[in-house]
């Protein structure tokens, strides 16, 4: 039982790591259609990574820090779009404030999941579309994405696109 006190202390320290996020600086997410998404990607003229997430999705929380880091790393070559589905606006803003504070990701809402369906996705989240600059979907990754897959698929997108 010598370990009891250090363990209790460790648990308290980890518990204290939780934060109350301030969502006042996060704008409301604009509701978009499939045409809006396609038009914005074509207008940007570069490939895009469209990540589908929701605040109630545990696995989305796990991959969010990776996507935030990747959006900064690739900010000049790839557009990162966060597509929030089937979520409450307040919870979505809380999630953005907690995980995507300074990330170069443009978040929009797809409340009924119709954009995801139109792009060929499924109802489950998380989900990541790799989209060419002409807005054609190059690849869909179902489930949590890892660093290796994300880096490889972005490289494939950029090389195929010639940007």
């Amino acid at each position, binding site marked *: 039982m010598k370990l009891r006190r250090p363990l209790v202390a460790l*648990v308290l320290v*980890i*518990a204290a*790591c*939780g934060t109350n996020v301030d969502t006042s600086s996060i704008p409301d997410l604009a509701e978009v259609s499939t045409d809006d998404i396609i038009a914005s990607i074509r207008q940007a003229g570069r490939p895009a990574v469209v990540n589908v997430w929701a605040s109630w999705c*545990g*696995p989305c*929380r*796990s*991959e*969010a*820090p*990776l996507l935030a*880091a*990747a959006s900064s*790393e690739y900010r000049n070559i790839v557009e990162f779009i966060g597509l929030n589905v089937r979520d409450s606006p307040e919870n979505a803003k809380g999630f953005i404030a*907690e*995980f995507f504070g300074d990330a170069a990701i443009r978040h929009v809402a797809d409340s009924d999941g119709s954009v995801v369906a139109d792009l060929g996705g499924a109802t489950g989240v998380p989900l990541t579309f790799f989209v060419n600059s002409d807005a054609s979907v*190059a*690849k869909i990754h*179902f*489930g*949590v*994405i*890892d*660093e*290796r*897959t*994300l*880096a*490889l698929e972005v*490289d*494939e997108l950029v*090389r*195929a696109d010639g940007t």
Partner: protein
Amino acid sequence: MEFTLLLAAAMAFAAAVVALRWEAARGNAADCTRDLGEILLTASVVGLFVGRLVAMVGSGVNPLTSPMDILIVRGGVATGPAVLAAMVTVAWAARDEIVVVADATAVAALAALGGWHLGCLPREACLGSPTDLPWAMTQPGSTIGRHPVELYAAAIFLLAAATLAVARRRRIPAGLAAATALIVAAAGRLLTEPLRPSLGGGPVWWYIAGIVAGIGAAAWALSRQSVSSPSPARPEP
């Protein structure tokens, strides 16, 4: 749900078990009272758990408020802390037989690493940076040839495991097999890291630290000059 990571882990464990049985038939750690397979499995689970926890805390996810996220291994595992935790677990489990157990599990650990990297095949995650070399492989639907970097790593570790198994047939200083395995494991990852897709270049400082620690352990083993090579298997009467 994706279970390909679990399949890769199963391949790693299978490779370790094969290596342990291969060595046991040749008198590996005949006097050791510990169950080597159990120690390796426990160390792997503890390492994975600690590595995942560190990765979660590092990326701002609280393990206490989101305990189920610990299971989402694909979300990231901190390599260095995971390996450290695994090594501490082996040391704790072995206690008074640390050097004997470390030597006796060295070949199996390298084989496990080889099995893990070979697990890229069912995961379809073997490819790295682009290349024009004749053995370049392409992703489905792509025309861009790439290094099969995880297969390189698997080849390095499996070849090293086989070489170390042969070397242990000779009388080598106690601790040298474990030190060599640590050097090979870290150097193998360091050599292949530039070919591996990543955001920040991978945990190269951890690999360098592993090489330095392995060289230190090898120097210590050579300075002691006691021998812990497996005795040859006795023929059946």
